[in-house]
């Protein structure tokens, strides 16, 4: 684990170097599309008349290059075919570079798969000198008892969520407080090592340096949930192509994240199988005519399926929209049921506010919010990502929630475990001290 701890630290340094250079790319490796944005950090925020910053203070960067390409070789949000994925990443990065007219060396990536799993950690230490110092924070984080999450899993996110001193809880920043006991709660997100290593290898093959890694469900929560939702408690459901991510936020911290390995691609493949059409046709029919609520009108709305096989009868087939909805709805329901199960397991019903925000490409199915309200609870809305400066109109839709969230993550990363100091006991300096002690003892 120290290994990953070090590599995350290295990524943070890389991110700082990228900020200094002023250009960093964000890369969203999804199952249906790979999006790459090139961000330029200039640090100069133009002051408006009313003294507020524009874009919720996110205007210190602007998007100068954006490109999307159809994803190849990615399934369930994980790399399936390395060479294909590498080529797709290269396509996206090159197009974005071309638009930005600059070279990007640092990339911050996110992905939705790799079976994320959440753990809540708690740690407690006695304070030596009454007042909490940086070292004490580091010690209490180190004192968190890490659960045995098994071999082949690594920590992706480790957010300190809450600090408590004696019996005062809910502290955001405990430094300087006086007390006897310091306790910390930490949210740990682990993922499959192999999946992330495959992705890192693909990105390295494109001559890019990794300046950060994030879970897609986390960053889409960052961009789709508004501030009070993050504060009061909300769940963000990012319905992607191959996986549906879930993240629960409260007090501006993510406390739970998980993903279901089902998404819009499964709906497409159902349509393809059910109507016996190619996948591309199925995708087109889904996006143009898709829905989840059948009405009497839909019986009369006939959809030309079309085909190119040369058989006139087959090429002129038509289905009613009701039939299409009849194919799509069970699969969407299944996805939502799975999410519901995850929410129940996470104890979402205990939260004070139970807002649910649907985002991601598959959330654009008409009528999804009504269906979701029936399955997940009454407080459901469709979310679109925050607006960031310079983002092309084509990339402002719900499908780009995690891409935009990654921009916010790049600009203002939340403090993670590895951003704090290394506790003194863990330094290699200890061996030096031992050597000194040996000298003292023997002379």
């Amino acid at each position, binding site marked *: 684990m120290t290994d990953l701890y070090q590599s995350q630290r290295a990524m943070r340094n890389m991110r700082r170097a990228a900020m200094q250079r002023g250009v960093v790319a964000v890369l969203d490796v999804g199952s249906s599309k790979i999006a790459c944005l090139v961000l330029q950090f200039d640090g100069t925020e133009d002051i408006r008349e009313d003294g507020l910053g524009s874009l919720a203070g996110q205007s210190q960067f602007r998007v100068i290059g954006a490109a999307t390409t159809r994803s190849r070789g990615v399934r369930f949000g994980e790399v399936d075919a390395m060479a294909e994925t590498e080529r797709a990443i290269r396509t996206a990065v*090159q197009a974005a570079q071309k638009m930005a*007219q*600059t070279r990007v060396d640092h990339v911050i990536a996110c992905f939705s798969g790799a079976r994320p799993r959440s753990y809540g950690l708690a740690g407690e230490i006695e304070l030596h000198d009454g007042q909490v110092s940086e070292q004490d924070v580091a010690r209490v984080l180190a004192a968190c008892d890490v659960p045995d999450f098994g071999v082949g899993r690594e920590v992706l996110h480790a957010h300190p969520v809450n600090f408590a001193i004696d019996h005062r809880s809910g502290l955001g920043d405990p430094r300087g407080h006086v007390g006897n006991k310091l306790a910390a709660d930490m949210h740990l997100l682990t993922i499959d090592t192999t999946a992330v290593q495959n992705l890192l290898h693909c990105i390295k093959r494109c*001559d890019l340096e990794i300046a950060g890694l994030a879970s897609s469900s986390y960053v889409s929560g960052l961009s789709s949930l508004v501030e009070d939702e993050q504060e009061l408690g909300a769940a963000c459901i990012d319905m992607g192509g191959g996986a549906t991510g879930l993240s629960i936020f409260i007090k501006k911290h993510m406390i739970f994240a998980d993903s279901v390995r089902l998404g819009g691609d499964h709906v497409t493949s159902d349509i393809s199988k059910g109507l016996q059409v190619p996948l591309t046709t199925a995708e087109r029919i889904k996006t143009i005519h898709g829905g989840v609520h059948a009405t009497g009108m839909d019986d009369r709305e006939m959809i030309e399926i079309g085909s190119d096989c040369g058989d006139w009868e087959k090429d002129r087939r038509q289905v009613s929209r009701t039939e299409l909805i009849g194919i799509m709805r069970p699969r969407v329901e299944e996805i939502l049921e799975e999410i519901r199960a995850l929410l129940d397991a996470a104890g979402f019903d205990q939260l004070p506010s139970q807002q649910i925000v649907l985002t991601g490409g598959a959330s654009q199915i008409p009528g999804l919010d009504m269906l979701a309200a029936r399955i997940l609870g009454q407080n459901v809305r469709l979310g679109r990502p925050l607006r960031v400066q310079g983002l092309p109109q084509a990339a402002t839709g719900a499908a780009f929630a995690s891409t935009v969230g990654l921009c916010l993550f790049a600009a203002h990363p939340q403090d993670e475990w590895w951003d704090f100091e290394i506790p003194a006991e863990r330094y290699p300096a200890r061996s030096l001290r031992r050597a000194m002690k040996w000298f003292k003892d023997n002379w």
Partner: protein
Amino acid sequence: MRSLGGADRRYSDPAPRRDPAPSRLAFRIERLWLTPMFRVALRVGVPFVLAASVAGGYLADDERRASLQQSLADLRRSVEERPEFMVRLMAIDGASEPVAKAIRGMLPVTLPASSFHIDLGALRAAIAQIDAVAGAELHIRKGGVLQVTVTEREPVILWRQAAGLEMLDAGGHRVATLLDRTARPDLPVIAGEGADALVGEAMAILAAAGPVGDRIRGLVRMGERRWDIVLDRDQRILLPETDPVTAVQRVIALDQAEDLLGRDVVVVDMRDDRRPTIRLAAGEGEKLTIMNTEVTGQ
């Protein structure tokens, strides 16, 4: 019989769609091209090096270099020697004959010459070196005439030295050497070390001594401190270091009231500003008596 190949081609799949992804090499080249330093090097450095190497290769040959220099020099001369730029005459205004002759001798080129070869600034400085010249204006007039307008120094006083007489202007600057005093009887004479530095004061003293002007033979600077007025009949007026003009006025007043200078006085000593002291020219006995009286008086 039709070839099977043709039929095959017709029914075979169309060529597989080209992958839009750039190859690794294309990706790297594009990234290299987007590197600012590389771009600058390519857009500025390569043409520069090419041009420099072509020029260097051409100039490497001695003969070519010489012919290039020759043609450049020819071009320059052809422009310089156009009739518009030629100076044919030199007109000198405001200078006396010897000065004009000296100025003509100073022109470094023989006329006609191109105006590019005449350095007016240097020529003007050279002309200003002549003592008799206070200032000179030079310009090249239309029609190829070098116009020299000279302001000569006006001699106001003569300075007698061991070597001879020098004429000085009001600022004490030498104008010319005078061989014969009688050539300029109108100018007063001064003498002594450092007298030339105080021509203005001397002129003021002489002006103050106007009423006895016809009797003044000259002024003598004594010890580089003060002036003596030397009159005919070997009379002297010794002036103080400070404010000599007032002392002169007092002497003149005394003279006009008492006819002091008309009497048998050798020296009028005004160095002590409280009282003038005079020395009489007389027989020895009388002189002693006066001296005794002076001594007893003190």
